[in-house]
């Protein structure tokens, strides 16, 4: 898959000393890692601390990463271990969920918020989900199909081009325009009082 190849290319850059490449990996995976950590630690601030620690551990361990598994699978293992260690350190028992470590994206999404989550965090999370879904529905068909094939089906640009019978450059443009349209709606959410745009990085 091209996305994994892209991750590996970034990893190789980090291994040569390019810190900006690791920064890009953090920006790419921070939400997923945070979601994973919150299966163990519900408090948002604490979860962010653990996610941060997991990324730093990953950075330190990255020189030894050979690329035998996908980067995100390796990263998720680190995140899970970091979360478990944090729980042990705080003498709390982890929330039990079935996590498929072979595929970090297959995290069950049925966990709901606990008492430790703030009303603001709850409202922001719900608003983000609602906004993204509404924005997807409002997209023209060609843009919606392009981003769904990419994000949900995981197809490469080349495969999407074959499916949609259009050039790869058109696929690239459609996916970007779809993201940009959804992002415009998201920015309105963040600017609208639930959170400032600068808070989301």
């Amino acid at each position, binding site marked *: 898959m091209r996305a994994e190849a892209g991750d590996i290319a970034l990893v190789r850059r980090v291994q040569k000393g390019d*810190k900006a490449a690791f920064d890009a990996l953090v920006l790419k995976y921070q939400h997923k890692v*945070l979601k994973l950590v919150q299966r163990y630690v519900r408090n948002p601030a604490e979860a962010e601390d653990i996610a941060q620690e997991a990324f730093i551990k990953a950075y330190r361990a990255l*020189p030894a990463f050979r690329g035998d598994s996908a980067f995100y699978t390796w990263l998720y293992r680190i995140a899970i271990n970091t979360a478990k260690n944090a729980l042990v350190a705080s003498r709390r028992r982890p929330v039990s969920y079935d996590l498929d470590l072979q595929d970090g994206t297959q995290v069950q999404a049925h966990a709901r918020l606990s008492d430790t989550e703030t009303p603001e965090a709850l409202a922001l999370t719900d608003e983000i989900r609602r906004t993204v879904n509404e924005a997807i529905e409002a997209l023209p068909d060609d843009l919606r199909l392009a981003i769904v094939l990419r994000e949900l089906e995981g197809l490469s640009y080349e495969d999407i081009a074959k499916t949609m019978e259009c050039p790869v450059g058109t696929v690239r443009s459609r996916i970007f325009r779809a993201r940009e349209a*959804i992002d415009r709606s998201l920015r309105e959410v963040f600017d609208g009082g639930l959170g400032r745009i600068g808070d989301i990085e």
Partner: protein
Amino acid sequence: MTDRIKEQLSTFLDGELPEQETALLLKRLERDDELRGALSRYSLIGAVLRNDGDVPAARQVAARVSAAIAREPLRVSAFVRLPRRDALLRSLAGLAVASGVAFGAVLIVQQVDSQDPAAPDAVLAQTSDPPIEPVSDAADAADDPARIYVTPPATDAPGRIAPAQLANYLVAHYGYATPLVRRSVGAGLMSAPDGSVLVDVAAPEGKADP
């Protein structure tokens, strides 16, 4: 931030951006907070779509990790080494430089050797030795290429370097020589059999005493 840059960002997120564009985009990401924000939101959109559930928006994770990583020592993997071709080219380049320096030194020594010892203070660059002209016997050379030769200029000098001329040269080029060369050439000078060394190499102006 232009749409072209954001389209690159979108393509980069999907791992479809060519290597050269990726390198430029990463440099831009380092200093463009707006671009970093866009990358984070694009990835959030994907996470929301894929998980169809609650995805928390990371507020400070990337900024804090970035700050922490900036304080970390550079970590270069043992698995990442110079490509063999690059290493070979570097070795060859070093060898070529060393060979060039050595060849130049031999030519200069030959020139010094050919100068008139009666004019020990002459500056090497101003010598007016007759030019060296290749002389060949065309007829013979056609049969035997090894017979092509160079006639050295006529000189009464003995078969060694004139100490004062070499000293002048050494002083003039002292700054370009390695310590080892300075020591070895200097020692050679000081041990000249006729003891006619006329230079104080420690002189601040680097000029030879007559």
